[in-house]
């Protein structure tokens, strides 16, 4: 195998094979991938990251495919990360998003990657941030991220994307559910897809009322509400225009810096959390004190909080854990 450095250099020169391999290594938490990312990361931060989220079957993939086409017509290169769930039973997954995007499979300016969540909650996969940074560093102008079909409270995509598109469809319950899911607050652009189906007008009325009654700060972005028929490509140009209008708003107000800072913080803290817990758990497993504390909790001699605090004290006092 090529060295991490060679892989990273090739990826920076837009070598698809190398970029695809780095994403794989990162997804597998392979140290070569982490090393390659270290070389790539300084070159990331230029791409426009566009998130597409919404309930299962809303037409996200169909819409993403049309977005790829529209962006390519505007002479932009596009990287796509399409996420589907990992089965909690087997650890396997069937990743079918790209079925709807295959018309772009032979376009050199489009790179489509399917990712399985691999246990990550929040609507993204375990290494979506990493993969996005790789595509970004490779020089793709736009990175499109399709989340898993979300229910409630799975909105990590807003930490990654400059613009979040929330897709709704007629006939999937009323707008109250959207409000409950918190999905309304995160949409910069709202799309009613399948607007060829009955109920689209009613849904549009409901969403319109809700968006109008949202508290609105002076000078803040006013979410757009659009209709599409993704299958026929209807409304897609308007959607792209709406997204770019949001991007221009971010740039004009300097808010894009805040997006970048928020993404960096989320990315960093997420990794830190993983690393910290992995180290401490490894210590707890390898140390006799860990087993004794667990036994204390089981026998109700100590409560779990007290046991955790005692373990952390032992971790901090252990000379081998100091670096």
């Amino acid at each position: 195998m090529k060295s991490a450095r060679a892989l990273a250099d090739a990826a920076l020169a837009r070598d698809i094979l190398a970029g695809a391999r780095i994403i794989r290594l990162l997804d597998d938490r392979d140290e070569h991938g982490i090393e390659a990312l270290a070389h790539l990361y300084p070159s990331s931060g230029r791409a426009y990251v566009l998130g597409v989220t919404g309930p299962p079957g809303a037409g996200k993939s169909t819409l993403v495919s049309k977005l790829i086409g529209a962006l390519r017509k505007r002479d932009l290169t596009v990287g796509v990360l399409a996420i589907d769930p990992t089965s909690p039973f087997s650890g396997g997954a069937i990743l079918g998003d790209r079925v709807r995007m295959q018309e772009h499979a032979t376009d050199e300016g489009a790179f489509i990657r399917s990712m399985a969540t691999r246990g990550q909650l929040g609507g993204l996969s375990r290494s979506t941030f990493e993969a996005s940074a790789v595509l970004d560093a490779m020089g793709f102008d736009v990175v499109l991220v399709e989340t898993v079909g979300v229910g409630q409270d799975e909105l990590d995509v807003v930490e990654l994307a400059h613009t979040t598109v929330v897709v709704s469809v007629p006939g999937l319950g009323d707008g109250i559910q959207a409000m409950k899911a918190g999905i309304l607050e995160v949409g910069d652009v709202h799309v009613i897809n399948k607007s060829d189906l009955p109920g689209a007008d009613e849904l549009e009325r409901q969403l319109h009322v809700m968006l109008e009654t949202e508290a609105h700060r002076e000078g803040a972005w006013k979410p757009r509400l659009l209709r599409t028929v993704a299958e026929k490509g209807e409304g897609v140009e308007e959607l792209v225009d709406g997204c770019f209008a949001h991007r221009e708003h971010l740039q004009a107000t300097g808010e894009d810096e805040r997006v970048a800072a928020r993404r960096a913080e989320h990315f960093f803290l997420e990794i830190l959390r993983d690393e910290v817990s992995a180290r401490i758990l490894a210590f707890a497993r390898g140390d006799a004190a860990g087993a004794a504390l667990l036994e204390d909790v089981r026998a109700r001699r100590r409560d779990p909080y007290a046991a955790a605090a005692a373990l952390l004290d032992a971790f901090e006092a252990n000379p081998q854990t100091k670096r």
Partner: protein
Amino acid sequence: MPRTLRVLVAKLGLDAHTIGVTVLARALRDAGMEVIYSGLRQTPEMVANTAIQEDVDVVGLSSLSGAHMKHFPQVVELLAAKGAGEKLVIGGGVIPDEDVSALKEKGMAEIFTMGTDTRDVVKYLDTWWADGDGAP
């Protein structure tokens, strides 16, 4: 952490029967693999590009329309030409026995003819993976 085996399942040719590949995709998922399904009517060029973008270890080709002698080897050639010749390419579908050895000579690792139990495919891939052929 063990690597997760990634498999592309692609249908070449013009037929529209998806039951076979769907059953196979489920069996592979249930065996813990990540299965990328790319849909019907794929061309060899689409399959090769998809396999590279997805960085799969295995490419599973299905053909029921009789185009396997032409299309399967094209996928193998394209992968090699694009620098991804290390991927394992297997095939299945309506394939006469007399074509099997010809396909293997052209770089197909294994051919599963009609009526193969999906468990045999899982076992074949597990063995190949465990033998370390798939190490990067």
